[in-house]
């Protein structure tokens, strides 16, 4: 590894010009959310974002009130930014590798509310557990 480290790899400098356009897109999406309730999602992985772009986004959006961690197929972080309705969603694999990163403009990201079937399944499991407890209690 020592040898490899001595080989400098200089990636091509990419222009820091995408963040302002993204911020305008976010503003437009928030408008639409307020007017018609339409959700919007921006896949950050599909955009060439430089470090400067990311810094600008972070600075402009800030940190909000909710920070969630989802543990399913690896960890996911869902954070509301300082702009309510703008969520920064990062899905990672079980090895911690980032799979996808997106900005969701919505009241709550779709992945957060519990699904009816899952609730039903959970309820079933809960009832089974209760039944077990009751039968075991006697």
């Amino acid at each position: 590894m020592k040898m490899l480290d001595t080989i400098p790899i200089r990636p091509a400098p990419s222009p820091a010009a995408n963040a302002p356009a993204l911020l305008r897109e976010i503003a437009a999406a928030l408008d639409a959310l307020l007017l018609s309730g339409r959700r919007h999602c921006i896949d950050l992985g599909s955009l060439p974002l430089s470090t400067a772009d990311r810094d600008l986004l972070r600075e402009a959006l800030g940190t909000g009130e909710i920070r969630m961690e989802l543990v399913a197929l690896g960890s996911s972080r869902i954070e509301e930014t300082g702009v309510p309705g703008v969520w920064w969603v990062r899905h990672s694999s079980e090895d911690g590798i980032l799979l996808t990163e997106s900005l969701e403009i919505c009241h709550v990201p779709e992945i957060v509310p519990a699904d009816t079937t899952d609730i039903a399944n959970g309820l079933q499991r809960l009832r089974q557990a209760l039944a077990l407890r009751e039968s075991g209690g006697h």
Partner: protein
Amino acid sequence: MDETILDAFRQNGLSRRAFLKFCAATASLLALPPAAAAAMAEKLASTPRPTVIYLSYQECTGCLESMTRSFSPTIEHLMFNSISLAFNDTLQAAAGEAAEAARKEAMRKAWGKYILIVDGAVPMGAGGAYCVAAGQSAVDDLRHAAQGAAAIIAVGTCAAFGGVPYAAPNPTGAVPVSEVIRDRPIINVSGCPPIPEVMTGVVVYYLSFGMPALDRQGRPLTFYGNTIHDRCYRRPFYDEGRFAHTFDDEGARNGWCLYELGCKGPVTYNACATLKWNQGTSFPIQSGHGCLGCSEPDFWDKGGFYRPLPAATGHWPRGEVLGGAALGGTVVGVGAAALARSRQQAAAAKSAKEVSSPSPKEDSHEH
């Protein structure tokens, strides 16, 4: 109602959230618009779980290795657990007649609907005798399996373009799948091996949205729409004219363009430069070696991996051939000059006989 992929997720103890995450990750991988993730989720949640038959012929199992030995098996793992991989020689536990029986049963049940993944070229020489399993040649086996397939995915350069078995002198008469099967939609997922995420992504895309848009080589444009060169992080060096001349010179150490060392990036369509390998760790050029062009047809037979792209492909003896051309030109030139000289001599002799120009009496004018 048939079991769906979402159902399969649940059976593995995963929630809908995991399913949504899977869809989001896959859509991102496929470079689909984020809205497509929702559409994909909806579709996969309602579509019956497909049957996948994975057949291997003249191949090295590198493609399967690529798919299964990746560090993060999450999605791939899910794929093959969630979709119904009914048959794969290498992965399944069953062997011998039991395996054959299982395959026949799976094909019968899903006849006309299953996805056929083919890995490897098909040898046509000697009546197909170079690749025979359970008494059936690869070509017959493929023809039969293809009849019941909704679509065929030719995985790896061997299946897509013939690959290594197809390389000159091609002793087994190997051909790509597309030369055996002409009446079924075929998606070529080339590469030696293909990027695992690409293989998964193509299957998921097909299940969600049907046939993807293909390039002229039958490859999904999503992954094969750009050349390695155009997406290469070393491209600026190419434009600046900075090149590595050998593998251990200053240019190589500085990470300059590998064009002179035979990189085939400019004519190779693949997603290596963007998706990279091993969870985005690196790809050949990043590790200091030029692209071999493994996702392109006949990549073995293009004059050599280390021969620069503009160099001639042929290994003809330059000096001898061009020297011969020079000699031939000289001989013909001398011949032409000799002919001209003899004609001149004849002309001179004839003119000498006529002595001087016409006599003064015969003098006319035309107006």
